[in-house]
């Protein structure tokens, strides 16, 4: 139980674009590097319309399940994997990260990428996860996924595309609303 009460969050607003993005922010590994994959998708609102002012961050282990504690995310020297990236969506609500498939960090657990969502119109941050679609037996026993109604489970599992990319869309509201998480 926490002793202090947390400071409230507030919306990221519309004007983060000149402040939070930085060069190669969404490139956890350089595009084209062996083993690299694209994680991409579209963020939509309650009417299915793309949201053009949304900022996503991902945080993940490397291919071997190692959690990096290396500095250098903001400078991206091209060879240090820091595990963290940031992507502002484009005018069509589309985001792209270049990264690697996360490895398993705990025996028997399904690998996933942690995601946090900020947007104009969204009054507080939202946490969620993107699971890799492989290994259905493991996904079936995952603590979070197995607890979800079948029709909502799929919102947390990416689709593997032919070129190895992961396609994962975020629906903030309405039909197929993405499952968002509370850790308190």
């Amino acid at each position, binding site marked *: 139980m926490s002793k*202090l009460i947390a*400071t409230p969050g507030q919306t990221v607003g519309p004007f983060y674009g000149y402040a939070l993005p930085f060069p190669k922010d969404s490139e956890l590994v350089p595009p084209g590097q062996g083993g690299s994959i694209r994680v991409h998708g579209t963020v939509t609102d*309650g009417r299915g319309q793309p949201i053009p002012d949304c900022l996503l961050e991902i945080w993940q282990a490397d291919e071997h399940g190692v959690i990096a504690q290396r*500095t250098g995310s*903001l400078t991206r020297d091209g060879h240090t994997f820091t595990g963290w990236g940031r992507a502002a969506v484009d005018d069509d609500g589309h985001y792209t990260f270049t990264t690697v498939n*996360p490895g398993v960090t705990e025996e028997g657990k399904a690998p996933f990428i942690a995601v946090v969502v900020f947007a104009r119109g969204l*009054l507080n941050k939202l946490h969620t996860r993107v699971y890799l679609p492989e290994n259905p037996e493991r996904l079936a026993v995952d603590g979070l996924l197995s607890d979800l109604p079948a029709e909502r489970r799929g919102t947390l599992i990416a689709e593997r595309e032919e070129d190895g990319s992961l396609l994962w869309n975020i629906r*903030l509201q309405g039909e197929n*609303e993405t499952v968002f998480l509370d*850790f308190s």
Partner: protein
Amino acid sequence: MTPSEQPVVSSDAAANTQAEISEDMRVIHSAYETGKAAGSLSEETQPRIDFPPYRSSILRHPTKDLRHTDPETIELWSPAFGHRDVHKLESDLTIQHNGDPLGERMIVRGRVLDGDGRPVRNQLVEVWQANSAGRYIHKRDQHPAPIDPNFTGVGRCLTGDDGSYEFITIKPGPYPWKNHHNAWRPAHIHFSLFGTDFTQRMITQMYFPGDPLFALDPIYQSITDQKARDRLVAQYDHDVTQHEWATGYTWDIVLSGSNRTWMDTEEDDK
């Protein structure tokens, strides 16, 4: 009504009056106070994400409850930032150009703590804000107030071993927006924070004491409890103010609790 059936006014339409928005906020706040007094609602400490007076929230908030889950390994850690990421001078927003920016020079300092009061050390703090006239350096900002060629309004720093941060900047001006007719945001600085656990990641806004726009602003008022709203307001601090140079404000930020197992040695100067 389902959300898709609700009449939605685009946030750019500025169709409502301030009186209508204020009345909507009054009804929501009074229902909260009544529920809290009756014991049917517990004290709220975070903004509501479903807060219709903030028009652009209507189609952008999840309608299903957040799913409770225990954080797994990756979520118990945060990315690491260091001096290769952030240069010391990036915390001074007044020296990024050839001349001095216009406006009231100020120092903002405070500490970043976790829910147990532990300082959050060597972590990234990012800020962005309007200039003294209430204008952002952003292509979507259409407010006809002057751009200051000597002020960008973006800063970063790393917290110290005691969780402390400090920025030197200019007091931002209030600015109009299109939520409703004659809508104005109280002056604020946007803050982005990391903790020791990724679950603590947060973005918020710091306000200034006594702002007359507080009562009118649906973003600030989306926090229904006055005690929680007060946590976003910096304090004027004459001990931080510097003789013939800058006024001073302090604002401490508390993140949610850490779920990590902490060693005693890591808690030494708690």
